Structures are given as structure tokens and as C-alpha cells.
């Protein structure tokens, strides 16, 4: 028994170290801009850069649109598949896993071919069109997380029986989704939304291929040109994502206990 406890703690310590040591090292480095003493100069330098605010704001806005589109696509799809076409579920799982394993590049090439300036729908011909394209790409990228979050949420409530219980009491389809399904998977949806947000904030490849002024490319640009600011930025973006994750936990705690959470 004793030795098992020791091993368990060792495994735990190694896992924690894996994440915490690089983080601590980065933080320590970010404080060393001023020679000979620790200071927050690197952070001051980051925050005074107008590009920082601009690119961050841009990514936040794209992130919010991505979340809205993602919810509108995923929630009804998961609901109908679970309820009416359960045999479609393995296929859905497969499809929603694809963005994880198809390099994002493939999708972007496809989009550029389809919507390039010489195509029928020249999305990339205008800034607005490119923004839409970027949002679409992010919806795809976040799909695995959003789908899993919502699917897990619907798994913990018996949507079939709840739907029938509401139907027999006279409720129509809209009332069922609005009053029964959505409130019960709210926490799951929020958790999917925060993950989506975190992914969009940190994404680099697609934004840079589409040449949009997003936070990811800004991060990489700074990373290759400066010494201490990248470390500060890394810590800042870690705090943002940590905040988003923490928010999920807090919301989960406030929600009624039966409300579905991802497991």
C-alpha cells in the first residue's frame, strides 16, 4: 500500500513538473528585461504596443463569432442525431474528429481554392470575406471540442425521455429545445465555448495563411524579433486561457447540480 502511494505521487509530481517547470522558467525569464534585477518592464513594453491591443481585440471578436456559429450548428445537429438518427452517431463522431487529424492546412487550401478571388464566391477577394472564411475555419477547428462538450452534456440528461415527457404535456419542438434541452446543457455549451475561445486566441497557422491581423501571428512575430517580450506574452496568454478554464469550473459550480457537465 505504502509503495503504491509513493508511485502515485511520483507520477503526479512528474506530470505537474512537465507543465509547471517550463511555465515557471518562462515567467522568471520574462522578469529579467532590466539587467540585474527583476521587473515588469517586458509586460509594460507589451501593453504599450498598439498592435497588441489591435490583434487581441480582433481575435476576441473572431472568437465570439466562432462560438455563436458553432453553437447554432452543433446543438441542433447533436440533438436531432441523438434523438432521431442514433445510428448516425458513430459517423458524426468520426466527422467531428476529422479537424483534429486533417492538418488545418488542408482545409485552408480547400477554402482558398473554393473561395479564392477567381472563384464563383470570391470570399478572399475582400477583407470581410476573408474574415468570414477565417471564422468558418475556426468553427471547423473548434468542432471536435464543441461537439464533444455538447454531446457529453446531452449524454448526462436522457434527452429522449425528457423530450417525450414534454411532448405528452403538450410542448412543441421549439418549447422543448428552448425550455428543456438548452437550459440543461448550458454548462456543457459554456465549457465548449471557452475551449473554442482559447483555441482561437492562440491559433497561428490559418490566420497567418489568410494574412489576418490576429493574436497568434502577432505572438509569433514578436517571438522571432524580440527577447523578453515573447516570454511576457506567453505568460499573458497563459493567464487568459487559465482564466477561461477557471470560468468553466466556476460556472459549473454555480449551475444546478444535475445540469450536464462534460466529464
Amino acid at each position, binding site marked *: 500500500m505504502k509503495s503504491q502511494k509513493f508511485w502515485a505521487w511520483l507520477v503526479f509530481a512528474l506530470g505537474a513538473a512537465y507543465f509547471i517547470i517550463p511555465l515557471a522558467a518562462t515567467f522568471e525569464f520574462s522578469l529579467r528585461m532590466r539587467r540585474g534585477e527583476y521587473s515588469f518592464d517586458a509586460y509594460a513594453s507589451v501593453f504599450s504596443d498598439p498592435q497588441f491591443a489591435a490583434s487581441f481585440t480582433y481575435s476576441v471578436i473572431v472568437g465570439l463569432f466562432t462560438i455563436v456559429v458553432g453553437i447554432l450548428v452543433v446543438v441542433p445537429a447533436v440533438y436531432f442525431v441523438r434523438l432521431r438518427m442514433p445510428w448516425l452517431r458513430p459517423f458524426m463522431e468520426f466527422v467531428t474528429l476529422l479537424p483534429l487529424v486533417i492538418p488545418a492546412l488542408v482545409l485552408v487550401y480547400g477554402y482558398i481554392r473554393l473561395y479564392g478571388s477567381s472563384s464563383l464566391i470570391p470570399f478572399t477577394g475582400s477583407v470581410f470575406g476573408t474574415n468570414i472564411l477565417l471564422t468558418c475555419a475556426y468553427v471547423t477547428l473548434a468542432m471536435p471540442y464543441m461537439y464533444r462538450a455538447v454531446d457529453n452534456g446531452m449524454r448526462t440528461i436522457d434527452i429522449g425521455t*425528457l423530450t*417525450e*415527457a414534454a*411532448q*405528452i404535456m*403538450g*410542448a412543441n419542438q421549439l418549447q422543448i429545445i428552448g425550455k428543456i434541452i438548452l437550459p*440543461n446543457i448550458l454548462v456543457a455549451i459554456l465549457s465548449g465555448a471557452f475551449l473554442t475561445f482559447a483555441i482561437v486566441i492562440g491559433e497561428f497557422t490559418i490566420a497567418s495563411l489568410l494574412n489576418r491581423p490576429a493574436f497568434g501571428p502577432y505572438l509569433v512575430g514578436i517571438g522571432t524579433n524580440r527577447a523578453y517580450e515573447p516570454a511576457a506574452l506567453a505568460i499573458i496568454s497563459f493567464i487568459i486561457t487559465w482564466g477561461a478554464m477557471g470560468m468553466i469550473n466556476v460556472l459549473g459550480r454555480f449551475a444546478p*447540480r*444535475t445540469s450536464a457537465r462534460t466529464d
Partner: protein
Amino acid sequence: MPAFLEVQNLVKSFGSNTVVKGVNFAFDKGEFISLLGPSGCGKTTILRMIAGFERPTSGAIRVDGDDITHLKPNQRKLGMVFQAYALFPNMTVGENIAFGLKIAGMPADQRRARVDEMLKLIGLPGFEKRYPYEMSGGQQQRVALARAIAPKPRLLLLDEPLSALDAKIRVSLREEIRAIQRDLGITTVFVTHDQEEAMSISDRIVVMNAGNIEQLGAAHDIYNRPATRFVATFVGQLNTLPAGLLPGATGERAIRPELISLAPRPETDLTLTGTIADLHFLGSVQRLRVDVGGTLLNIDTFNNQTKPLQRGDTVTLHLAQKDLLTLGA
């Protein structure tokens, strides 16, 4: 008086698999009806067709003279209680009970009064602010019952509502359901695979097997005068007496365990001798297994404090000619 709930030639096939094979029955207003049978006998499918969740392949369902066969579930004005409680987890008990009333457009003050009335009826006054997860299974199922009957449905459907509960709660809740049903006079269809449950609660029982009705009648009739071999063996326990065991019997006979006694009764006119092969003390009932010339007979006797029986004891069994059943096909 025409029947209140009428099912005519009801057939349901899933692909090439016909699970309900032309079922007919008619019941009066206020009756408590059980659909009893093993799993896969079609009882749940019939209930789901009455509710509107399954579309019959052919046949008709009428409630109070209206043909509801092709209505959507939300147009049928029925109440239903599910095996898995199916309370809305995001709503309090009060909101759950008020849900159907709200959908029907009842004003808020009337709703509140009706919810209070329902909570009193199910013995949970003051629970309206609780959430389902704060309650026990038995309490949740009582709330589900209140929710189903609050909008005064024409018919109450119960889909194995007790099977997720513990044995003790199961017994007390079924008595409570029966009492409420009798008070309100609401016609109720109850689906179960538990024969004791069906017998204890129902006015009439529909015993089903493989998509057909095997027997329809009161519990007493079904138990004492089973129409088919299936009913005789599915409902209650049965001892089979092979031909030759009883003097003068020409074929196989059967008898219920409680109709064999260790002491003569006024009506007994046959005796058998055997040895106790096994005995189980179950509290109020003691179950004996008696070996009579190689045939094992189960015998139920009430707990008797005076002289405990032992394995290996020789006993004389008393039974009555009139209690013997002849099993058909």
C-alpha cells in the same frame, strides 16, 4: 355506456418484425388496467402507441370516442409517468408540476393553487422549491405522477414507474398510486413485467405474450383460472404433478404452492407423503421443497413458532381435487 379506452386490431411492425399482432381491448372510465408480460411481449409498444410516440402499422385507438390514432403526442391530452422519472432537472418541483399547465396557458395564480393541491395529494407539501436531484427516487417518482395528473389528462399512462425503485418503496408507492387513482377516478394504463405488482394494483389485467393477448381479466380470475399454460406459469408459482402421482389422475395436473398444506383443511380430499428436501425460512412464509416419489413440490406455509421443521422430516401433504389445474397448450 361505450368503452372509454378502445384499441382495435392494433398492429405494429418494425421492418419484418411484428411486435404487436392485432390487439383488441376496451375499458371503462376509471378502470386501472395493467399490461403484463415478459420483456419483448409488446406491452410497452402498445403504451407508446397510445401515447403517440410510435405510429401503429394498422388499427385504431379511441379515447372517450375520439379517434386519436393519428394525433401527435402533444395533441392527445394524456399524462404519462416514465420508468426513469424524467423530471426536468433544470426546474424545481413546482416548475415541473406547473409545466403542463403553463403550456396549456393556465394563469399563474391558478397554476400555483393547482401545484399546491398536487403536492398535498402526493404527500410532499412544501417541496415546490426543491430540485429533483435533492430528492430520493421515490419522491421524484411521486413528483412525476403529480406532474402527469396536474393538467387533468384524459388517460394516465404508467411505463414501469416502479422498477427503478427499492423493494420497500416499490410496495408503498404502488399502493399510493392506486389510492390516488381511485380518488381521482382517472383511467390508467400500467405497464409492468412484475406479476405481483400487476395483481396487487389492477382492476383488470391484460396478460400478453409475443405480441398477442393471452388472457384479459381480474387478478383473481387470472391467478385461479389461467386460460393458457403461459398464463399459468407466468403468473404465480406452480407445481406440476406428473400423471400417476395422484391416484386416479389420467394426465398431468398442476397446483399452486399455497394450496398444499401440512394439515387437513375442510375441503382437502387428497393426500401425498414425502420428505422435506429443502426448506427456506422467508419470514412470514416458510417455503418447503418436498420430495414425493422423485417429484419436488414447492409448498408455502406461514411461519409457525411452535414446531420448527427439519430437512429429512417425513410429512403428509393435503390438497383438494377442486384446486387442481389442467394445463392446456
